């Protein structure tokens, strides 16, 4: 047989092999693509469901706000306020609550870290008074307690600490502010009161961070 026949036979075999490989690769790609398609569809469906839940929660919050019609002051009921938190406080109207409160709180915290406590107090007071429904309120209240304590205004520090205890009894920030409260009692030689506060914090907050801090303070007191 002439060599050209061998060559053409070889080329045909090669072409068939390439076609077969290509087809295999194509079907593999296709399979992968359909898997990707199915997965992304599933992800989008989950996203839809979570968006729907959020939307219905938003609607429910409106209902809560309506049901709370007779209760004009939410300040003593943090849980209820959170549930009906779509209600903007009158002084918060026309403001982007989250952005404005966070930026005011952050500038207060910056001032606190720089040691400019008077400036920090002004910013924290602004945050809690102008944005009573914002999420920054808790942390701002705690920093107020610390700023007043550092500047020697212990009475104000105690008063803010008590306010936090009344408004946000379950918050970690309140636990931290109670530790400051105990410090003040220790400074005032009211050791028993300080011990009572530490004991309350130990019993009410099981978080490691708080437990360790209280135990450290108790050790420092020689107990």
């Amino acid at each position, binding site marked *: 047989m002439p060599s050209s026949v061998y060559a053409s036979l070889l080329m045909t075999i090669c072409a068939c092999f390439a076609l077969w490989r290509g087809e295999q690769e194509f079907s593999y*790609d296709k399979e992968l693509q359909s898997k990707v398609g199915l997965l992304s569809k599933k992800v989008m469906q989950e996203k839809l469901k979570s968006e729907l839940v959020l939307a219905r929660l938003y609607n429910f919050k409106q209902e809560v706000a309506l049901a709370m019609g007779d209760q004009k002051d939410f300040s003593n009921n943090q849980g209820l306020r959170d549930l009906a938190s779509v209600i903007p406080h009158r002084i918060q109207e026309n403001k982007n609550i989250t952005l404005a409160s966070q930026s005011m709180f952050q500038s207060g915290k910056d001032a606190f870290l720089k040691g400019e406590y008077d400036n920090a107090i002004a910013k924290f007071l602004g945050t809690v008074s102008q944005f009573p429904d914002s999420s920054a309120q808790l942390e701002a209240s705690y920093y107020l307690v610390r700023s007043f304590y550092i500047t020697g205004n212990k009475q104000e520090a105690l008063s803010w600490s008590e306010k936090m205890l009344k408004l946000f009894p379950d918050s970690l920030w309140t636990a931290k502010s109670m530790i400051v409260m105990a410090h003040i009692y220790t400074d005032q030689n009211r050791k028993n009161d300080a011990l009572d506060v530490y004991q309350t914090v130990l019993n009410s907050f099981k978080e490691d961070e708080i437990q360790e801090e209280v135990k450290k303070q108790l050790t420092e007191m020689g107990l």
Partner: protein
Amino acid sequence: MLFSWLLFLILNQGNADGGTQWPDRCLQNKTRPCVLFVHKKSHFKLEKDQFFFSKDSLVEWTGKEHISLYKGISWMKFSEIADVELPFGTLQVTPESELVVDLKDNRIVVSVLSGKVRVAARADQSAYELTEGTEVEFGPVDYQRKVASISLPRTIVLPNYLKSIQKAFPFSDFNFQEHLERVGKSIRSGLLLQSKWSQTIVETKMSDARRDKVRQKYEAEHAQRRDSLLRRIFRQKNNFEEE
């Protein structure tokens, strides 16, 4: 390989156009309730009703001609009477009405481009009727008044409308210029209506002022007459001589 990628692109394009539906393909199967989450701005046609939705819009068809809007910007044209539910209120739409609803954080703007729409704030018994070229703004429930807040109807504010509609309008499918011209006409008729409202308000105020003036004049004269009558009776009773 190339062919497979082309096929993938074509298939993907087809899915993205419809957004995600729950239950699957509920719009095509006319299952109710049917929730739609839109991936990118899209145009939908359901029977004779038409919708443009912005990216990330969340809409639920709860029944025939009953829609709940949760999120995003929607342009809607209804062929029949329809109810539209919003987080802060409800809309009742007359046939052949065209409207745009923009749901923002704590604020919803409803603009009517044609037809009539009855708007009511959540828990409010009273309602407004919006006509073409007018809009209204809703806010969340005001716990002191026990209702959602609602503004007075006003003429559509064009710059704000343009900002909203550009997020929902499919420029490739429709002629935006034509749309703008129609909106312009709607706003003109809205302005005419508002100028009539203003005219009526001014006329009412003027007629009130005129009536007040007449009443004051009458009261002044009447007071004078009453005084002189009383004086006369007093004098007669006390046998005083008339001046």
